[in-house]
């Protein structure tokens, strides 16, 4: 049984302007020690889907299931969820600058996370906080623990957030674009840190990112999201060598050597559909280079595609996708070859 299995997760916000269908049928599973990458354009529902399953989204209509270690998180009581959050499931958020409380010392904020779940003394919790700050590579951790977040740089704040998330050696870590706000060298260090956690403690990691290079480097498998739906699910190697969904192909084609970010490159012409309108066909159809009439009549379900086991794609062409790719050829050729540095990194995963 996988550690975490999400099935047909749907999240709808009822707003004054109408219903926002932020997530429409998200499914994935994750084992201990495994890293799942979730990629997709801004607004595709990456944050909403992960924050919903840990109960951090308020006022939305939620359906589906999210079974973690035998407990369905969507049915669990607030008390159960409180016990799991921080203890078994930790999160690192998108924006390190605003995720720490401005009025409390960094060390105290980390100690608070420890004290929320363990019966230990104040001073022991403090000592643990200092140890954690040292673990994540913050120089002079004793002094830094007594400082307020505004004295920390962005990278240091994200490290502090990671220290907080790692405080109780969680079974699963959800890292929501942990490096987006940081510069490249800090990015690599933060990713190393997460990677170390995974190997040392068998922590399962969900890594949300815009960065295909990061996915190639650290993820075991990938979910590609588009307009609130998973459009392709595959293990990393299979996704990069044999992308089936035209959206994934477009993503890979537009990114030289996997190094650039999706949000920076106007990769695919057009924009994703409004989440306020109920989709009657494939949500990607208006931007798809291979669109046919059948695409607009029903929403294609995730179905096995290609030869790799577990490779799923939500495209009517995927059923005979191998053939299409062979004749079309563009996706396979433009995907980076083995010489790419990013790709070498991922080969060891």
């Amino acid at each position, binding site marked *: 049984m996988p550690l975490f299995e999400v099935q047909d997760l749907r999240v709808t916000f009822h707003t004054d302007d109408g219903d926002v269908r932020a997530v429409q049928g998200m499914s994935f599973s994750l084992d201990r020690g495994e890293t799942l990458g979730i990629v997709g354009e801004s607004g595709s529902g990456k944050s909403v889907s992960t924050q919903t399953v840990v109960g951090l989204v308020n006022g939305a209509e939620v359906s589906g299931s999210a079974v973690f270690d035998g407990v369905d998180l969507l049915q669990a009581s607030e008390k159960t969820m409180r016990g799991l*959050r*921080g*203890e078994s499931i*930790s999160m690192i958020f998108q924006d390190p600058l605003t*995720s720490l409380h*401005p009025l409390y010392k960094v060390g105290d904020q980390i100690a608070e*996370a420890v004290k929320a*779940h363990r019966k230990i003394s104040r001073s022991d919790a403090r000592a643990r906080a200092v140890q954690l700050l040292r673990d994540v590579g913050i120089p002079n951790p004793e002094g830094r623990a007594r400082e*307020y977040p*505004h004295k920390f740089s962005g990278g240091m704040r994200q490290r502090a957030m990671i220290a907080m998330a790692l405080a109780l050696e969680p079974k699963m870590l959800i890292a929501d674009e942990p490096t987006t706000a940081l510069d490249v060298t800090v990015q690599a260090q933060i990713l190393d840190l997460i990677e170390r956690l995974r190997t040392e403690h068998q922590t399962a990691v969900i890594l949300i990112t815009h960065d295909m290079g990061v996915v190639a480097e650290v993820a075991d498998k990938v979910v590609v999201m588009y307009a609130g739906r998973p459009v392709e699910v595959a293990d990393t190697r299979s996704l990069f060598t044999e992308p089936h969904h035209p959206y994934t192909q477009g993503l890979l084609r537009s990114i030289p050597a996997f190094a650039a970010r999706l949000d920076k490159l106007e990769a695919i012409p057009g924009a994703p559909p409004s989440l306020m309108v109920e989709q009657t066909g494939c949500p990607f159809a208006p931007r798809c280079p291979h669109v046919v009439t059948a695409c607009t009549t029903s929403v294609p379900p995730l179905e096995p595609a290609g030869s790799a086991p577990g490779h799923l794609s939500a495209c009517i062409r995927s059923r005979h996708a191998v053939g299409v790719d062979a004749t079309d050829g563009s996706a396979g050729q433009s995907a980076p070859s083995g010489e790419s540095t990013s790709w070498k990194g991922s080969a060891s995963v």
Partner: protein
Amino acid sequence: MFSFVVRRVIYLVIVLLILSFLTYLLFFGGNPGNIAAQVVGRNATAAQIANTRIRLGLNHSLLYQWWHYVTQAVFHGNLGTDFQNQEPVITEIKQALPVTASLTIGGAILWMLLGIPIGIQSATKPRSIRDRLSTIFALTFLSIPSFVLGLVMLYFLFFDLTDHAHLHWFPSGTYVPITQNVGQWFVHMILPWISIALVSAAVYTRLMRASLLDVLGEDYIRTARAKGLPRRTVLFKHGVRAALSPIVTQFGLDIGTLLGGAVITEQVFSLQGIGKLSLTSLFSKNLPVVSGTILLGAAFIVIFNAIVDVLYAVLDPRVRLS
């Protein structure tokens, strides 16, 4: 901190000097002879008026009078002498201040006890029944001037109860000093406190609600929840604590202003406080008293502004005193 205090004290002195001068200037924009005539009374002879002018120092130049007032205030600490009864102004202020302070402090406690919890309640459950009820409460009292509220309460809770229902819930008469009888002091202050507090409570309800709603949408609140902290800890330690700054500002300003005299409420409930003192002295052209109460009010506002700034720095590590 030390240099902050020094700077604020200098600032206070300058404000008081300018204000006292402006008071004199405005006052003598009229006719000083006329003032003397009013002070002596209706049937005074020309000679009496002239004598009074000299006695009150009104024959000197404006600048001289002002400077005399300032040196008197500084070296004798008496803030001048009452035109009417020859008492040092400071004595009259000392009598009136406890009344106004009682009104202010009691009222403030009451409006905080009402406004803050209601504000927190409605911010935690926006659009709930309770939130709507509290909005109605707030809008109702925000739209009633406090003196109308005072008069209405006086009518129904005092005259009506006493005269018709013969219920002596609220005593007649005015202020009883707290040093004389704590119980009597308390019951005599209840109606004035309520009349001051209800309107302000509405202001604080709105303020607390808006500020807390903002804070509860912040990323660090999500972090607190992600740590698995209990609801109350998230709400109070992380939420309310961060939402206090606008409350503290408003509170400092309100206290500072009220201590300078709650003119209307004191009038309605015939409390002999600073507000009543300044009103009476204004009507009787009692310049030193007018000036004294104005300076007192200004001093309170400046001082409480400084206190707010200090509290800011205490509450928020990002703020430095400067």
